[in-house]
């Protein structure tokens, strides 16, 4: 299955950048979760968990890179229904944490199936639009694609995990865009969204949801409550300055003024401890990974490969941009993690697997 010559087409630069980001993430997780016993600092349990997830993630990456993506795409419908099964299972029997039912308990690990939804969705959408000569120019095709998205999206939203559910939308848009979605249609969707927004505000949103948006716009309204995280995120980032407070020297993250620092707000802690320079380095790495991946799409042998990379990267980029904006208090707080860096095993494994697919597409650009 794995021809020797393919080895020479592995995009080592992309792989290195991805692993570098993971390494930086591990360092930041260490900084936010270490425990001090008798004056000696030791890694918290989260670092260990994340390292295990990294090992599993690298295995997933290797598998996803070696198995021909076209073969995977052929089985995408099977994978899709498997995913739906897991999501339903989670809703029925999943374990509950923080008031949401997201996980399947596997003993040592808690598996979060929703994290794998983006890959499966990318595969099935790439498959659907790739097999179809017309691309995404036909509204009917778009509708079918939309249904593919809607089912897992609703299941995930039901957990409830609106953040993760929302990340499925850019996957769809990414694939559709590359598949030739008419710009006029895209504009129409945007226009409808703008027109619907005030109506939705009036009728569809519940009061607590409105207050959440209001406190995001003006966090000082409720600095101890809903606005707290937004305010603290800005303080955390702003107080980092040019060079930062130093590794394990941040005050906002270390003293828990910023909640879930190792998870949703890991980028805030990076900005606090490593400063603007650290932010530029990591943002640069992410941008490199994204642009480099899109190069893989450009080089892809077939439309399937293009759409696959497009879907994965659209979801990935959306997550990165949203989380980074949230970490500086420029987006409402939602449970969207920073892929590759945030603490979270399922997320890391799924993301590494996704990059395995991207490497896979680039690697096989010359194969038949």
């Amino acid at each position, binding site marked *: 299955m794995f021809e020797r010559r393919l080895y020479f087409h592995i995009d080592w630069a992309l792989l290195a950048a991805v692993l570098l980001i993971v390494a930086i993430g591990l360092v930041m997780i260490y900084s936010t979760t270490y425990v001090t016993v008798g004056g000696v600092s030791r890694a918290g349990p989260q670092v260990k968990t994340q390292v295990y997830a990294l090992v599993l993630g690298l295995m997933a990456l290797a598998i996803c890179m070696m198995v021909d993506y076209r073969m995977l795409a052929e089985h995408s419908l099977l994978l899709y229904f498997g995913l739906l099964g897991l999501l339903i299972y989670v809703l029925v029997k999943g374990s509950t944490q923080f008031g949401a039912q997201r996980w399947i308990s596997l003993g040592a690990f808690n598996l979060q199936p929703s994290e794998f939804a983006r890959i499966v969705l990318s595969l099935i959408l790439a498959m659907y639009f*790739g097999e179809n000569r017309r691309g995404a120019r036909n509204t009917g095709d778009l509708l079918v694609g939309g249904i593919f998205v809607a089912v897992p999206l609703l299941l995930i939203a039901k957990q409830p995990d609106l953040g993760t559910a929302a990340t499925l939308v850019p996957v769809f848009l990414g694939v559709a865009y590359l598949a030739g979605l008419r710009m006029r249609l895209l504009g129409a969707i945007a226009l409808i969204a703008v027109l619907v927004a005030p109506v939705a505000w009036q009728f569809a949103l519940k009061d607590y949801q409105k207050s959440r948006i209001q406190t995001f716009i003006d966090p000082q309204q409720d600095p101890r409550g809903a606005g707290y995280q937004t305010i603290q995120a*800005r303080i955390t*980032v*702003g107080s980092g*300055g040019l060079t930062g407070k130093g590794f394990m020297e941040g005050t*906002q993250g270390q003293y828990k*003024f910023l909640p879930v620092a190792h998870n949703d707000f890991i980028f805030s802690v990076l*900005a606090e401890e490593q400063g603007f320079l650290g932010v530029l380095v990591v943002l640069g790495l992410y941008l490199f990974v994204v642009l480099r991946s899109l190069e893989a799409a450009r080089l892809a042998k077939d439309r399937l490969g293009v759409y696959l990379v497009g879907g994965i990267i659209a979801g990935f980029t959306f997550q990165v941009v949203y989380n980074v904006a949230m970490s500086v208090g420029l987006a409402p707080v939602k449970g969207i993690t920073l892929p590759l860096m945030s603490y979270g095993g399922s997320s890391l494994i799924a993301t590494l697997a996704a990059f395995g697919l991207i490497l896979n597409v680039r690697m096989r650009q010359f194969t038949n």
Partner: protein
Amino acid sequence: MGNTGMMPDDRRNLTLRLSVLQGIIAAVFGVLAVGFWVFQIVQYEEFKDRADNNHLRRLALRAPRGVVLDRHGEVLISNRVTFNIALVREQVRDLDRTLRILSDATGVDEQEFRDRITRFSREPAYRPVVLIPNASDELRIAVSARALELPGVIAEEVPTRRYPTSALAAHIFGYVTEVREEQLARPEFTGIGPGAIVGQAGVEQAYNTLLMGVEGRREVVVNSIGREIEVLGTEKPIEGRSLQLTIDADVQRATEEMFQHLGYNGAAVILEPQSGEVLSLVSLPAYNPNLFATGIDRASWSALNTDTLRPLSNRALQGRYSPGSTFKIVVAVAALEEGVSTPERQIFCPGSATFFGRSFRCHKAGGHGSLDLRRALEQSCNVYFYTLGNMLGIDRIHKWADALGMADRTGIDLPNEVQSIMPSTAWKLRTRGERWYPGETISVAIGQGQVSTTPLSMAVMMMTLANGGTRHTPHLLKAIDEGRGFEPVPVPAPKSAVQMKASTMKAVGDGLWMAVHSGTARRAMLPGRDISGKTGTAQVISLGAAQAAKGKMDVRHHGWFVFFAPRDNPEIAGVIFAEHAGGSGFSLPIAKHAIETYFAKKEGLPLPVIEKPVTAPVVIADVAPATAPVAPPRSGGNP
């Protein structure tokens, strides 16, 4: 899968779309980077401050107030360590519940806690609000027993004022309390926050700024739930300046003890005539300033305020009383200095005399016969001084009363001194809008009528007489320790100075010596000490009114004794004022005991002790009340 291969057309289109996507994404990342630049570089200072405010706590450490010593180094006021039970609001989740439990455990009214919390509402939530100042051990144990139910309730160690001598000299020391809300706006309290301990009376108030010291601070790092993680630095509080007072604790004690032994309230002031230093200043009844230091409870506070004996009032400088016969000294000095009479002038006392058609009596029914100034002072003859007063007129009496310090505030370094009332024609026109009738002067000449003086100004009068005319400013502060040991403070400038004639001083001095050794003040005589002095009686109320008021109020007369000693080169001068003593009799043993203590201490002799309890008051009449028509009803006490 051949059908998924790409046409060149598709490829071109795709390349374009990918390029657009790459451009958009790069732009979005650029915007994010600019966002971080704005927060981290442009607004860095602001966010740095806010982050510091999050985790840095600056806690004030109360500075011990300065120690106060007497002139010989005896500690009069010091500090001790007590515990306040306080509340850190940011650590309290359910305030109502916490206060209920705390009230339950301590028996203190919940509303009292709420009042305190309201007063501190503008302070940062991490600053402890004192709920129970100077909690007893029992309360502390009661609270710590329920510590688990009371998160955020702490016991903090604070230095607290300690007055080892209890109520001794309370009116000199004054007392301290937490600064009152309305005081915070005053200029002398700038830089002081709520909860600070400040002097509210006496030396504690007068020298508050010196005594307060400088608050220390402790800087700690806390986490988001307010737990201390690390102490960054401690700046120790700087103790207030130590003060040395002019007071002699033994003389002070002797004076107060004799008052208490005899069972009288009143006032006493003993001055050093060459400088105005206050050796003793008594006002009784007093209070225990330790009560205030530990946060006086409402009941005690209202008891002190409603007590008809007015223990919070410093009689020595806030009480005004009719000077009675002691005022004859002023008239004598005025007559001699103004040249209207001579010491040798003989005046016949038949027991009464008629001025302006009214009869004024002497206290000796049969009259003193013919006597000169010396004997008139010795016997306290009213007729002699009616005559001198009539010759002088009110304005010349006023002039000399002023020169001797009885018409002005003395300027002592204690707060809220009141001014003696010394009538004159101008004074009456100003205050009553009426002209002065010469007949009114007759009563004033024997210290009745409208003249009304504070005990302190009487002491100043005797001091000025003793030193020949220099009206020193009485003062309590002798030296300050600024960290280099006690350094004397400059003596305040005299309020005024006149040069009295030697003959005046000799004649008046003789008369006063004779009063103690062979006249009305014999009970003050101390062999070898040459005490010179003069008794006086202050009517509380006129005789007629006294009958009417009998049983409703204490109508017994106040007794005065003013003195200096020894006769030549006096070392001390002062006044004893025994409230409702019935007459001047009981002021005499108090003076005698105080003076004896002074000399004994000076010469290293054992201090005199009060021996046998005095049984029945022996009234030595020196002055019969003046005739009814001129003497208006008055209350001698300060309202």
